[in-house]
């Protein structure tokens, strides 16, 4: 690396209170699409924002499927790029569900996000996008989020007898490794 910047060192290392990390700028997303979403769904649309040039709509969990249907059939977002989740254990609504949509006609990509609690069972999007089938199974496999009305809600990557859901934050690689070594080799892993 020829040219390097100094890492962003905190200005006052003496202060003990941890400084909140800098965040990417988030601006409200204005335009025809967020307007029509707000018109159609009112309070269910919590926020429409742009960050790093990417559009994102946050909606209430119960209106995810209607919003997806609206985007798919009225706004030409005919391709579900990805469906995934992220875990925030310290929050009351623990999981973020993220739907990434693309429209071939508009050449536009948006993210639809919602927050759900650990025991909430969101509705499956398979009826709107067939792609959602395996993607939801993977979310179930990794996070333990069960989708209702899914045709085949079972694990996809991990074996059926697997315990736990690895992408939850409380699952640690080291603990999984130690447990496996103990059970299968009957020794301490020493890690």
């Amino acid at each position: 690396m020829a040219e390097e910047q100094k890492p962003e060192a905190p200005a006052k290392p003496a202060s003990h209170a941890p400084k909140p990390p800098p965040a990417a700028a988030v601006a409200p997303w204005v335009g025809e699409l967020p307007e029509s979403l707000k018109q159609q769904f009112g309070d269910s649309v919590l926020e429409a924002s742009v960050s790093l040039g990417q559009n994102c709509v946050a909606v209430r969990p119960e209106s995810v499927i209607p919003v997806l249907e609206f985007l798919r059939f009225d706004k030409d977002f005919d391709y579900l790029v990805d469906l995934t989740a992220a875990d925030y254990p310290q929050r009351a609504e623990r999981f973020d569900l993220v739907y990434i949509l693309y429209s071939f006609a508009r050449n536009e990509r948006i993210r639809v996000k919602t927050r759900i609690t650990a025991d909430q069972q969101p509705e499956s999007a398979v009826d709107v996008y067939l792609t959602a089938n395996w993607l939801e199974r993977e979310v179930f496999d990794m996070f333990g989020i069960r989708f209702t009305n899914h045709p085949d809600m079972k694990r996809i990557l991990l074996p059926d007898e697997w315990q736990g859901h690895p992408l939850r934050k409380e699952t640690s690689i080291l603990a999984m490794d130690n447990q496996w070594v103990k059970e299968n080799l009957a020794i301490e892993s020493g890690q």
Partner: protein
Amino acid sequence: MPDTTFLDATELVLNMGPQHPSTHGVLRVILKLDGEKVIGTECVIGYLHRGVEKIAENRTYAMFVPYVDRMDYVAAVSNGLGYCLAVEKLLNVEATPRAQAVRIILTELNRIASHLIWLGTHALDIGAITPLFYTLREREEVLKIFEKYCGARLTTHAFRIGGLQYEIYEDFERDVNAFCDMFLPKVDEYEELLTNNRIWRRRLIGVGVLNADDCKQYGVTGPMLRAAGVKWDIRKAMPYSGYEKYDFEIPTAKNADTYDRYVVRMAEMRQSERIIRQAVAGIPEGPIMAKVPKVIKPPAGEAYVSIEAPKGELGYFVVSDGSTQPYRVRIRPPSFVNLQALDKMCRGALVADVVAIIGTIDIVLGEIDR
């Protein structure tokens, strides 16, 4: 699959894989057959699952770069490019023009290498052994360039967040040009062997049809989508890494069958060669690394960045919490999503066609299982 499978005497359940050579790794397909006809399939995947997304949460941004090479290991350079672009997006930096040009050359060389592997193995599955020897011979030349550039042939770790680790070696341009000169006639050679070959045509034409609407429903991208007549390529639709500077076409076809996917991929190799030639003729001078802090700590936020990998849309959804490690990395693998359409494509086909259809999707299990 429904539980009634075994009850009807005319139905037969056949297990294929995970050790079957034509499943390109460790894909297991449970076929439900009526005589020779497929009436349903179920894929069992995960044999290669290594928990890449979990590993990402336990590594720093820079430490995770080599891991992504091990997903689609025949197109490691593309994987690295997608991840680096995603982190660069979070950091709000862009690679320098020189780095971008070198990245494009290596990525397109890798696309050729990946398509060559696909062509050789696909033909092998169908019963033509010869093309594999030829395609591996040419792929070797690509790997030699990789090896000379960064020391590795397969899992290259060629790119760094913000640009490149290594300056190009002295004869890089000459080697790449020599490869391009050599390569186009070889594509003609493959086509001579296959395009009008009667066995090849009868095994492929009309097999595994997946039309444009179905492709979109199943999220199928890449050459499969283009073979269904949709002129869509992320390099054109949402250009990244400077692809807008180069002149190339998006090959498409109409019939959406296995043969058309072959035609599209052959044309794509020619287009890649075109891009490489343009890029290598004008590698700009300048630094190869953008100004990136030594400790990579992107501001809290999230970004989804995708590239046109040889197999389709490869996306990275990276969430940063402002620390040195990613909070969440989601990898959207093209093979995983494309494989889901296997069932649709196989229904009504013959058992022998299943082999052709698995080949035409161009899957890499390392990427499906991650």
